[in-house]
């Protein structure tokens, strides 16, 4: 079985192989590597922290249980993002969540629950004024992203936050290349329209 040092420097494919051979450490490493990007994407889809945690957990459980079906000549990150996207879309279809509130989930009826589901944005190493401005900027950007249609949102986040190529986004979202390009183009136009007056 691999050592912790070996695991932390190994490729995703190697870690998957060790996991399939029965290494618990390898399973944990896969969760550690992808919990933040997967949770971030799902949170920005459903806008509810508790729900996002449940869906991220569901994503990992599905992925790790189906690890045998993963083919190592594909990117592991694309594979797990595809599962995350499908899980979030299914959830959105089931619940028809209102995705606009940054003050917490729309179904959070008490202030305590609203606090629990609200987005936490932190900026370390800045002065209080800079931190306030950064928070305000972050808030505006999050709000603008939240107004986009879910499919536009996923496309633009995968492109500009995760840095995926158009082809990969198409594979993750099961969309033709042309549709991905259209969605990203429209999402950018909408974001510019919303954010340009307030930020510039």
């Amino acid at each position, binding site marked *: 079985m691999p050592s912790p040092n070996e695991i932390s420097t190994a490729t995703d494919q190697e870690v998957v192989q060790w996991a399939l051979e*029965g290494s618990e450490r390898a399973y944990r490493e896969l969760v550690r590597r992808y919990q933040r990007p997967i949770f*971030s994407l799902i949170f920005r889809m459903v806008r509810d922290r508790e729900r996002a945690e449940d869906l991220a957990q569901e994503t990992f459980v599905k992925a790790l249980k189906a690890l045998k079906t993963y083919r190592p000549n594909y990117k592991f990150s694309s594979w797990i993002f595809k599962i995350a996207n499908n899980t979030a879309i299914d959830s959105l279809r089931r619940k028809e969540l209102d995705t606009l509130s940054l003050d917490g989930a729309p179904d959070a009826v008490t202030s305590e629950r609203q606090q629990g589901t609200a987005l936490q944005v932190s900026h370390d190493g800045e002065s209080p004024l800079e931190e306030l401005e950064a928070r305000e900027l972050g808030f505006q950007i999050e709000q603008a992203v939240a107004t986009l249609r879910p499919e536009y949102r996923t496309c*633009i986040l995968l492109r500009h936050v995760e840095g995926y190529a158009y082809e990969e986004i198409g594979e993750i979202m099961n969309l033709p290349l042309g549709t991905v390009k259209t969605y990203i183009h429209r999402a950018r136009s909408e974001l510019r329209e919303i954010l340009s007056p307030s930020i510039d």
Partner: protein
Amino acid sequence: MKPNNVTHVTPESEDPLVHKWLSELPQLEPGSGFEDAVMAHITIPKPSRLKKLQSATSGWLTGRRRRLALAATVTYATLSTTSVVLLTTVFGAQTSAAWSALVAQPTSAIWESGIVFLLSAVHSMAPIAVIWNIGFTEVALAASAGVVVSILCALGLKHMLRYSNGSNALDYANA
């Protein structure tokens, strides 16, 4: 999904303004205990001893070295089974009464020898194959090749013994 050889045009160059805005977004972290919560739902597969051994030895031999190892294994199996042919046919028939009875008929002797060759090939190749992490298909192919070569050797040997100097082990056994 396609293999991961797609081309990349950077998002920055496409739309620097939108990219700047979105790169301001922080990566969010799930609550503490997330990893354990996921692991609670996962059953870790228990690897077989063979898998463990293969895993431990993986990477020992690759590419050309792997082919050389396979060739060496075939040669080893062929030589070892041929030596069995020699021992059983020449010395075995002369020294063992039981074996003499078994090989009383020349045709039957060849079949009996064939079984010995097969067992010999398999027993000599299997541990080597496991240690060198060679796939079972290759083992089967190599073992089959070893057995075929050994049987041909046996037939050749029988022919040679029958027609050389008028006295040979099979005639001795038949007597």
